[in-house]
């Protein structure tokens, strides 16, 4: 077995909340991530799926080293992200690119597209100064944009174009891993389809490892070969995309699939209630309060993520039977 490019070992992230009154000094804790175990192989395409508040974005911030884990370890290759020295950090920043959810907001509005794309190349000294310009043109071409946009400002581009520029910027430093946060949310379907096809082709052609955050299971299934479903800071199910879609074993995954709008089935509100607050988590299974098949044991025992098959894991005491 190949060495994983990323390993998360029981990663936990808690935020201390200020006590509400000055008489009440006991600080409360918000557990955004709790005991996340994840291995990412080189060339994997993994989608992190879940409702807002499930911890998807926190997880990716930890994997990018933007925040330290409160407990557990995040390994990139063999190295702990928390212990990288300056030189290693810089190499990490080149090898792991991030595409922000708000593509326009992630760019300096007073820089032209040419400069935005040249910056990472210059920063990492990837080529001679004279070779930067043709390289930037090639980058734009790779994401299907004309060179005529080079002298424009981010505000002059459409929603689809700006996402492509964000992808081009991520590619500029020739990364090995791309992490993307909701990169196609809020786009029109035809533009979304273009951006999805672009991302999919890039990953297939260059063997880039992709971690893609989305709340849309359809997008996840189109882009990624593996899916990890998160709920309240835990991975509740993970496995190959086809297996997750065809035989979801966790009741939450099944409910997400049922709520997904489709042409051939009536509307179905598969889940009642909302994702609870990550402060003061219940003792048993976190999903018990909304689960249709909840049993007495679920409120007592917190199920751990356990392997069903070689590549399939689920955290449920009573997994849905495979059909």
């Amino acid at each position: 077995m190949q060495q994983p490019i990323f390993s998360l070992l029981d990663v936990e992230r808690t935020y201390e909340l200020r006590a509400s009154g000055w008489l009440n000094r006991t600080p409360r804790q918000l557990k955004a991530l709790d005991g996340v175990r994840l291995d990412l192989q080189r060339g994997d395409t993994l989608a992190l799926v879940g409702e807002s508040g499930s911890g998807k974005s926190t997880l990716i911030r930890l994997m990018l080293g933007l925040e330290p884990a409160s407990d557990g370890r995040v390994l990139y290759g063999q190295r702990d992200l928390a212990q990288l020295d300056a030189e290693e950090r810089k190499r990490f920043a080149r090898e792991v690119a991030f595409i922000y959810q708000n593509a326009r907001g992630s760019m300096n509005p007073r820089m032209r597209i040419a400069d935005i794309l040249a910056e990472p190349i210059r920063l990492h000294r990837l080529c001679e100064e004279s070779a930067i310009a043709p390289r930037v043109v090639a980058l734009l071409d790779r994401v299907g944009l004309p060179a005529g946009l080079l002298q424009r400002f981010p505000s002059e581009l459409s929603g689809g174009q700006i996402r492509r520029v964000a992808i081009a910027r991520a590619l500029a430093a020739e990364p090995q891993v791309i992490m993307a946060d909701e990169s196609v949310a809020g786009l029109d379907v035809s533009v979304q389809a273009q951006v999805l096809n672009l991302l999919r082709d890039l990953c297939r052609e260059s063997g880039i490892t992709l971690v893609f955050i989305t709340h849309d299971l359809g997008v996840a299934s189109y882009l990624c070969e593996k899916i990890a479903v998160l709920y309240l800071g835990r991975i509740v199910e993970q496995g190959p995309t086809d297996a997750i879609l065809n035989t979801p074993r966790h009741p939450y995954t099944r409910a997400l699939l049922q709520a997904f709008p489709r042409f051939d089935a009536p509307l179905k509100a598969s889940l009642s209630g909302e994702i609870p607050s990550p402060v003061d988590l219940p003792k048993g299974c976190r999903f018990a309060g909304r689960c249709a098949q909840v049993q007495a044991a679920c409120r007592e025992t917190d199920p751990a993520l356990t392997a069903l098959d070689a590549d399939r894991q689920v955290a449920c005491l009573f997994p849905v039977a495979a059909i």
Partner: protein
Amino acid sequence: MDCAVALTPQAADMPASPPPLLEVRDFSLRRGQAVVLDGVNLALHPGETLGLIGESGAGKSTLALALIGLLRAPEVQLQGSLRFRGTELTQLREADYRRLRGNKIGLIFQDATAALNPCFTVGEQIAEPLKRHLGLSKWDRRDRAAALMQSVGIPEPRLRLDAYPHELSGGMQQRVMIAVALACNPELLLADEPTSALDVTIQAQIMELILDRVRALNSSAVFVLHDLALGAQVCDRIAVMYAGQIVEEGPSDRVLAAPLHPYTRGLKSCVVELGSRMLEPIPGQVPPLNAMPAGCRFAPRCPKAKAICSEQRPLAEIHDGRQVACWFID
């Protein structure tokens, strides 16, 4: 050519059917030189739900805003007719419009956080139309507001009456806005992307709730949507809009299961479904308002376009129980 008469299929098929609740005829809206809506024809009958579907810039929201009189002269120039229960809306005075809005026509917007006033409690905001349109007393309003909150699935409504919008989650705020919209039992509900900011599980809950309330009140609803599959699930009829025109309109099961217009087909092949293997994006993009093609507005992006398409605008024809505006319908 007088196409307007032929364009109301109900009138042609069933002369004895009741008059439509809402009738849009040859309606155009200009903003200066730009033609934002061009020759829109629609009819909505009591109890029906209609989905306006298309990409941004298609004019869906503009049409919805024009219907409720929030886009009027002199800001924009209107042509043609908008009739609601037989009343011509384009000629209505603002004071009369105010009597309709929030009363006979309820509104639900996309962004509940922006639509609700942060300075008033949700109870006060639900009670406002009850005071303005129904003239209920203070205590009746409070009772009614609590009952409305209960009906839209807000737990412990008595306690939440005095909550401010920011104290509620996004899904709960959306429910509050639905309660405001339904406060006076409207005959028509306009919902502009009511769930696009919400998670799928909450989206399904909210859509089910809206449909449930609309049916309970025997009202009609117009949804502005960008999600075709959701449109298929919640709407009786679908109007597909492109660049300010309706290109295809009819019963949702037929329009979406077997689209006739190339644009509807193109849109459908872009939709990501569970386990989609291949998406085929429509090439090109929506033309800007100041440079609309002379003939069919979709012609530059259409795989089936021929010479006539870029010269003459196709008029909507009735085909298989729907109106389709295309020169080459199979």
